[in-house]
């Protein structure tokens, strides 16, 4: 068994203007099968990917926002959202869709996956990673 590496997926684009966010999410879900130490970071316009209340019916696009809720089941339990990026966009944590995971070591208690972190904290987290992917 190879050694576990720390992976970070950085998401910095808004959800529908390009295919990056959807493709990135699929890579995370597929990559989860390799049992690495995975986290995601949402910065810049990437924070809009987690905006609550996306409704694409009129625009005819695929609403992939419910898929983020599957991340907890794939053991992606650390989702960092940069506070400064939210503030610059007039958003707060309450604007984000709630994402949770079930902790098997704690009687399957449901715990929040989203952590709001400062740019400085995120900078430290980035430095810790072995592998970083950008979408």
């Amino acid at each position, binding site marked *: 068994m190879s050694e576990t590496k720390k992976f970070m997926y950085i998401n910095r684009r808004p959800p*529908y*203007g390009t295919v990056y966010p959807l493709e990135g999410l699929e890579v995370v879900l597929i990559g989860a099968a390799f049992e690495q130490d995975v986290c995601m970071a949402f910065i810049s*316009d990437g924070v809009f990917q987690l905006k609550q209340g996306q409704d*694409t019916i*009129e625009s005819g696009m695929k609403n992939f926002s419910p898929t983020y809720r599957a991340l907890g089941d794939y053991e992606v339990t650390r989702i960092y959202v940069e506070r400064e990026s939210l503030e610059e966009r007039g958003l707060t944590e309450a604007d984000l869709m709630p994402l949770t995971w079930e902790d098997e070591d704690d009687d399957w208690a449901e715990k929040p996956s989203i952590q709001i972190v400062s740019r400085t904290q995120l900078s430290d987290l980035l430095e810790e990673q072995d592998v970083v992917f950008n979408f």
Partner: protein
Amino acid sequence: MLHTVNKSSFESASLKICLGLAKSGSDILLIEDGVYGALAGTIHATMLAEATSAVSVYALGPDLKARGLPEDRLISGIKVVGYDGFVELACANDKVQSWL
């Protein structure tokens, strides 16, 4: 002239460039990721709010909905239109300038 902006104002300068070049009385329609520029309380909100005195600013409703942006979160003075409104604006103006 109708100006359309389809890029997020946080990722691209296209909204700023458009506002700088649009004549008084122009129509400006925010579409696709451009609708993020219509959000109130952002670092770019003042720029657009000030422009609404000289130009008419519209945002495309279906693109707002797709992104989870309700009308009560928009800069006041921005009008929300549907695809039919997009067509009406295109017909009412002699030219359309797309800031891609």
